């Protein structure tokens, strides 16, 4: 390949891979021309509002709609009884369970959907909701998952009584959902018996909510003449929604069109299918008019897609030098009243088997038991690949606990146990196959950057003065890019993704993908990949996603799968076009393919200056001057089924200062080094990392959905639920190394979720480290000032001298 100044200049003009290209999405957003679900209006559109239960567990005695129906402007009030004849009162969840669309005879979580009111506008609908009279008979609420399997526990799911063959395993109790385990239990138990040192810690990864700034919504419009249902949905997976809607309604999939327009953030919240979407669609079918449902913030936080809520017991076995011999983890997973976790079908605990982390651990065993409680369903991957945050949290916490027990430095113990560069690809004890990594380089780079030794020295001095300073270190490995269809599917559809590229006669291109952006700048970055592959300037490549009538089928954007799967499909599709282009070029230049070499945006005849055809020339020829027998046109589709997952990693370090009198924890410094393989757009990557770190900060330091013993959710509005402002948010320092994935066409691994996954245990580690000299080994999140103060108080640190 030529590297002349001229060709470098041409390459720069393309704005391809590696360029911090400005975003294509921005011009419309900064001028108020975004097009989100609630922005869309249709002639004759009606508004839906949902009647919800004040009880966490109650039998519905009666529903009286008379008064609501009498209100002028109200068109319908639908209950489960109305949906029954259509068999739409229950729907399948992504986790192999079913969920009530509208409560069928009883309610099983607070604010569950009981009825839906359809009216002319949102004000009338809200009035009518108050006029629907529902009589309940309260039942005892089951809130503590540790009591779910008690013999006298109230049975939450009466529809499942006697059905002991669960979707994933035998059920051991009416409130039990599944047992999932992985690893060699026997060898692990043995390693613990033989170990010189063992540590054990119980930790609660609390219930949180992704809380994107735009809530969930749907505008459904059923065309009675064509028999076609069109729905604008806030969905991270529009094609999956189409398949489910078709299966549920019996409308042929060709007559269901799902459009994900601009989406105001997803973070996992917009993966599942919610009763609100279904009721809007049903109402539109029944009434023959467009119906819009958009949830309020309170509804969003209370009823749609929570994350985490895992009670974890972690254990490590090691020798006296700190070499880890075995990991054992037991988890009690609170899934709420319906198992609506968004995981690949065969993975009820997601990708939790990554819990051996970045370490060379010979023996491991993990077991997860899912149970029902009277809480909202969910279990989505909040800015992470499925259950990866939980996995990283447990192993990173345990490594710290072990270091404290052995009196070892927390960086040193990691360097000692890392999988070494020459061990890749590295098969873990729990069945992951780490593709590539260089963990030592990453951590050492961070330690040097912050002058780690000096920090520890300062900490010693502070401790001597009775001050609290903590240093948290986390070296995480993620598993993303679900996934290989031999093991990964959602409702039976393999988790491939797709790209379709068309090069027009004059050389510009249109590409459509099965993924959907929610702020990740797909319109910008996909074009960069195609630009580099085909030599067409990014500016001349139009990217479209989200409309199931036009885009190829794909599983959507979540779990950091867009770069590992969607971008791979894009590169492969582009390479198919390039292969055809080479043949056309050879034909035009009257040489054989072998005589050609690619140079940025053109094929050249090797050794013959001036003999060349640009991609523009080739595009034109593709429509009028082809080799004999070749099909006209220049386009390709690729459905990319990844051979493996990708494993991004990173090393994070956080320094906190804690006021022992108030518990206020100040993040003095946060240094984040990420390795996501090949970097497609460094500016976008940096932005994603800032965002992920900030969401991690929110989870670790304040976000929590808690419940009282009666099942009342405590704090389900932004009055209580912690979304950090610019004032609380720390300043982030970022860094990177590049270790390409060996199996990805571009070497890229995915990035947006690493900072969330990696930062959360870093904050906990830093807070706990501040108390480590006082024999504190773990503190549960969120590390709000009050809770940190409680620890200071318990230790008597808040007493004035």
């Amino acid at each position, binding site marked *: 390949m030529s590297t002349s100044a001229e060709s470098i200049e041409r390459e720069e003009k393309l704005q391809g891979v590696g360029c911090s290209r400005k975003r294509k999405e921005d011009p419309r957003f900064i001028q108020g021309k975004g097009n989100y679900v609630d922005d869309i209006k249709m002639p004759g559109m009606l508004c839906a509002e949902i*009647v*919800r239960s*004040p*009880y*966490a567990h109650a039998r519905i005695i009666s529903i009286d709609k008379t008064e609501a129906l009498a209100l002028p402007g109200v068109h319908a009030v639908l209950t489960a009884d109305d949906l029954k004849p259509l068999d739409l009162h229950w729907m399948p969840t992504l986790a192999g369970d079913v969920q009530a669309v509208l409560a069928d005879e009883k309610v099983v979580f*607070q604010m569950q959907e009981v009825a839906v009111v359809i009216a002319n506008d949102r004000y009338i609908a809200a009035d009518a*909701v*108050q006029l*629907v*009279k*529902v009589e*309940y008979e*309260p039942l005892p609420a089951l809130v503590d998952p540790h009591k779910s399997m008690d013999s006298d526990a109230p049975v939450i799911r009466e529809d499942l009584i006697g059905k002991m063959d669960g979707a994933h395993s035998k059920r051991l109790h009416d409130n039990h959902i599944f047992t999932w385990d992985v690893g060699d239990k026997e060898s692990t138990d043995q390693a613990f018996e033989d170990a010189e040192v063992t540590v054990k810690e119980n930790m609660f990864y609390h219930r949180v909510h992704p809380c994107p700034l735009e809530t969930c919504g749907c505008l459904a419009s059923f065309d009675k003449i064509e028999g076609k249902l069109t729905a604008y949905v806030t969905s991270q997976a529009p094609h999956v929604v189409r398949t489910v809607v078709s299966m549920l309604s019996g409308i042929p999939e060709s007559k269901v069109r799902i459009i994900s327009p601009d989406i105001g953030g997803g973070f996992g919240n917009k993966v599942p299918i919610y009763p609100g979407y279904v009721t809007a669609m049903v109402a539109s079918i029944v009434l023959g008019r467009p119906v819009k449902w958009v949830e309020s913030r*309170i509804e969003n936080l*209370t009823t749609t897609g929570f994350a985490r809520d895992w009670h974890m017991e972690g254990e490590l076995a090691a020798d006296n030098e700190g070499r880890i011999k075995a990991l054992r983890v037991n988890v009690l997973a609170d899934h709420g009243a319906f198992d609506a976790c968004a995981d690949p079908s065969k993975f009820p605990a997601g990708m939790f088997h990554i819990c051996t982390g970045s370490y060379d651990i010979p023996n491991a065993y993990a077991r997860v038991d899912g149970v029902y409680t009277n809480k909202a369903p969910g279990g989505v991957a909040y800015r992470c690949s499925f259950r990866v945050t939980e996995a990283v949290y447990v192993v990173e916490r345990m490594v710290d606990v072990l270091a404290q027990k052995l009196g070892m430095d927390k960086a040193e113990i990691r360097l000692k146990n890392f999988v070494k560069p020459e061990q890749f690809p590295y098969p873990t004890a729990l069945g992951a196959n780490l593709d590539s990594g260089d963990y030592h380089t990453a951590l050492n780079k961070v330690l040097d950057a912050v002058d780690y030794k000096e920090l520890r020295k300062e900490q010693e001095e502070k401790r001597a003065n009775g001050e609290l300073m903590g240093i948290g270190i986390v070296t995480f490995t993620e598993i993303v890019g679900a996934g290989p269809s031999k093991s990964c599917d959602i409702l039976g559809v393999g988790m491939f993704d797709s790209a379709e590229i068309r090069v027009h006669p004059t050389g510009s291109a249109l590409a459509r993908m099965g993924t959907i952006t929610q702020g990740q700048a797909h319109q910008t970055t996909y074009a960069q990949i195609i630009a580099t592959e085909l030599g067409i300037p990014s500016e001349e490549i139009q990217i479209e996603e989200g409309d199931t009538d036009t885009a190829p089928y794909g599983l959507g954007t979540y779990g950091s799968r867009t770069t590992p799967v969607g971008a791979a499909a894009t590169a492969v599709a582009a390479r198919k076009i390039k292969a055809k282009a080479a043949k056309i070029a050879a034909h035009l230049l009257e040489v054989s393919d072998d005589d050609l070499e690619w140079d940025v945006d053109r094929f050249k005849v090797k050794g013959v200056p001036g003999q060349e055809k640009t991609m523009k020339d080739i595009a034109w020829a593709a429509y009028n001057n082809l080799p004999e027998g070749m099909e006209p046109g220049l386009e390709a589709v690729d459905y990319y089924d990844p051979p493996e997952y990708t494993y991004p990693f990173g090393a994070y370090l956080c320094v906190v200062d804690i006021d022992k009198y108030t518990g206020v924890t100040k993040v003095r410094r946060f240094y984040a080094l990420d390795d996501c393989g090949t970097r497609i757009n460094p500016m976008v990557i940096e932005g994603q990392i800032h965002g992920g770190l900030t969401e991690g900060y929110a989870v670790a330091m304040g976000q929590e959905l808690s419940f*009282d*013993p*009666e*099942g*009342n*959710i*405590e*704090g*389900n*509005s932004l*009055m209580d639920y912690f979304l950090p402002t610019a004032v609380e948010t720390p300043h982030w320092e970022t860094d990177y190394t590049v270790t390409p994935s060996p199996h990805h066409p571009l070497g890229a691994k995915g990035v947006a979720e690493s900072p969330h996954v990696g930062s959360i245990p870093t904050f906990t580690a830093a807070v706990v480290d501040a108390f480590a000299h006082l024999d504190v080994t773990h503190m549960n999140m969120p590390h709000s000032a009050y809770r940190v103060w409680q620890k200071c108080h318990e230790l008597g640190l808040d007493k004035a001298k």
Partner: protein
Amino acid sequence: MKVDLDKVFEIDGSEKNTWTFLQDIPGVASCMPGAEITEQVDANNYKGKVRAKVGPATMSFEGDIEIQEINEENKSLHFIGKGQDTKGTSAAEMDLTASVRKGESGATELVGVATVTVTGKVANFGGRMMTQVADQILNQFGKNFANNVVAMGEGESAEEAAKVVAEQPKELNGLAFAWSIFVGYLKSLFGK
């Protein structure tokens, strides 16, 4: 959420009058700020409503009161009140046993032991203030109750009390009430 309340009010009146008034369900209900009995269904069942306004939120509960037991011997009354707010977003239940006794100082005492359970919006938003709110409601109730009993007596203080009773606030309202809750809340923070 559940709040357990345990209250003793000193009543400036006889045990007999206190017990007599305690059995007057509509009368007792009207001592509860914002509460009233709207219908007597039978000897032991009443319908009533409670209106509470704290800050910007107004909640109007409608529900049933069922007398579980009237024990002449112990001078005690046990009832359960259950209601839902008219907007369907909240529900409340109160299980109350009230009794009359002679206190250690010799004065008549009204003893109330109650469990209040609230669900829905009122718990979501007001959960943390619930103990203080309930406490303030009961304090007002105690005052009103005492005045009613005093008014059953004779003399100047009875006339005075009767006047106060007539002016009894009809709903839980206003800044003064919010303020007293706030003060109670602060006390609870620093009292421990």
